[in-house]
């Protein structure tokens, strides 16, 4: 239908704008305004309480200077350290989620039945169940006497106290478990669109499983792969849920960006400082989103 670029006679412009008004109000108030405001606050010494709450002073780039104070910023609990931890966390989660999601999608490609339903349901539930409840089952799972250690003990492996001895590994494991569903659903939808005849052709030509994946499937899911990589990066960068497992500790070992921001702004009530961090985070997010758009454009151009 050529109707997309037509001035509709169905809705008058006035009715249309009336219907859109609540949307614009919400977007303006809860998206645009916070964005502008957080930038403004990052140049002040605003706090929650005290003199600086009533009358915050403009202090220029001081907040940013403090964040990037290269003498101290890599100390534990400081901004630079948090950035490094976040990069670890993101990269490890990304690799885990995307590979696992792709693996499951491939394993069940063109299969149906009870087994597939069960696995997909389990993985999806891990994604959608409330984070507070999930955090508790994970606390138990990772407990020195928890299920994980019971399982490890059964096959004769060591039984560490996960949250104390390997907190970063713990939250990565947790995050991979929680987020794999997205990649899995995305890839299995993409694979579902590959026409069976392509694979049959490859079979006839005698391709082995790896060749079939590389030459037939991979080219068809490239766009989804790019989407998954960047969206998972963006989400992981901003995820707060590990707080429920570790509160950022012990000794700031899991002080990833969202937890760090929360601590500065809502534990120390340093809103100016917290906003400066938020601005840096948004800059990073913008770059990631830009890369995403670029990858998407490229993907479309390639098709």
């Amino acid at each position, binding site marked *: 239908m050529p109707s*997309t*670029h037509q001035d509709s*006679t*169905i*809705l008058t412009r006035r009715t*249309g*704008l009336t219907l*859109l008004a609540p949307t614009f109000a*919400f*977007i303006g108030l*809860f*998206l645009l305004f*916070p*964005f502008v*405001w*957080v930038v403004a606050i990052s140049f002040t010494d605003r706090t929650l309480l005290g003199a600086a709450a009533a009358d915050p002073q403009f202090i220029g780039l001081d907040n940013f200077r403090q964040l990037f104070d290269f003498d101290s910023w890599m100390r534990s609990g400081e901004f630079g350290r948090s950035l490094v931890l976040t990069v670890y966390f993101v990269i490890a989660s990304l690799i885990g989620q995307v590979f696992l999601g792709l*693996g*499951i999608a491939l*394993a069940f490609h063109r299969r149906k039945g009870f087994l597939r339903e*069960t*696995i997909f349901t*389990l*993985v*999806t*539930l*891990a994604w*959608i*169940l*409330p*984070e*507070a*409840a999930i*955090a*508790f*089952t*994970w*606390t*138990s799972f990772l407990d020195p*006497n928890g*299920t994980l250690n019971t*399982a490890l003990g059964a096959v004769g492996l060591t039984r560490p106290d996960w949250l104390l001895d390997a907190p970063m590994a713990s939250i990565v494991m947790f995050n991979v478990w929680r987020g794999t569903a997205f990649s899995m*659903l*995305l890839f299995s939808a993409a694979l579902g669109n590959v026409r069976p005849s392509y694979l049959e052709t490859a079979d006839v030509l005698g391709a082995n*499983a790896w060749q079939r994946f590389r030459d037939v499937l991979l080219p068809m899911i490239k766009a989804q792969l790019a*989407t998954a990589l960047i969206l998972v990066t*963006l*989400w992981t960068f*901003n995820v*707060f*849920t590990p707080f429920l497992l570790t509160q950022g500790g012990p000794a700031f070992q899991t002080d990833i*960006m969202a937890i760090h*921001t*929360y601590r500065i*702004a*809502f534990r120390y009530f340093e809103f100016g400082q*917290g906003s400066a961090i*938020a601005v840096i985070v*948004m800059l990073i*997010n913008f770059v990631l*989103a830009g890369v995403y758009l670029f990858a998407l454009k490229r993907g479309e151009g390639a098709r």
Partner: protein
Amino acid sequence: MNLVRFVLARVGFSAFVAVIAAAFALPLLWLILAPFHDQATLSVSLPTNPTLDNFRAVFDNQFAVRALFVNSMIQAAGAMVLTTLVATLGAYALARIHLPGRDVFVYVLILFSSVVTGSAAMVPVFLLIFRMGLIDQHLGVILVFTGGLLPVALFIMRDFMQSIPRSYEESALVNGANQWQMLRDVVLPMTRSGMMVIGIWAFVNVWGSFLIPFILLRSPDKMPAATATYSFYTEAGTPVITLISAYALLYVIPVLVLYLFVNWKYGFQFFGGIKS
């Protein structure tokens, strides 16, 4: 040769499936077993004397009951209704009137909202709600959630609306309906299933989210189950594991039920990024 390969492939597949199933099921085991244990701990074992006492303990706890059945319900249902309403009307207008930049609007919005989110947005959103005098109010939580869920909701709804032939609305107008009658009698009834999907999605999101109520609410009698669960753990000193386990199970059940419902009714379809 071929047989060997076939057997190896079967074995490999079975092993992979077994490992995945274990990895995704085992962490949930505690959630299913501990609530029925008479002396639940953080370790998992089959309850030898299965009991419902833990649930009784939950129902005896005023604070726990209120959080789950009143506060979580108000906040999730409120955000659900508001998100669905705003998104449906907005998406309909976006699908039917011509505005410059209309086609990229939703995409820009989604990207922008995934940039101004989580940790980046918490400070200004807190200050905004503080200024509006809505700290420690259900309404503040509902409004913030609605603002956050709106972009994706708009995106899904607009797609849905565009798939409805215009002739239905045109025939309503020719039949003599005015714009509001057309909306009420034709457009809204025809988008019911889309509204259902958005509504469930919004409900589940709000029901399970921790950060926003954690920042915006103070007093125990406003807390939803998400922050209540957490406060059991941190504030009671030694956490009351039995209580928490039963409570956590009650808390996930609505999500479980809604998932099963959606799966049965629509198949768990995938709307790029259904979860924000």
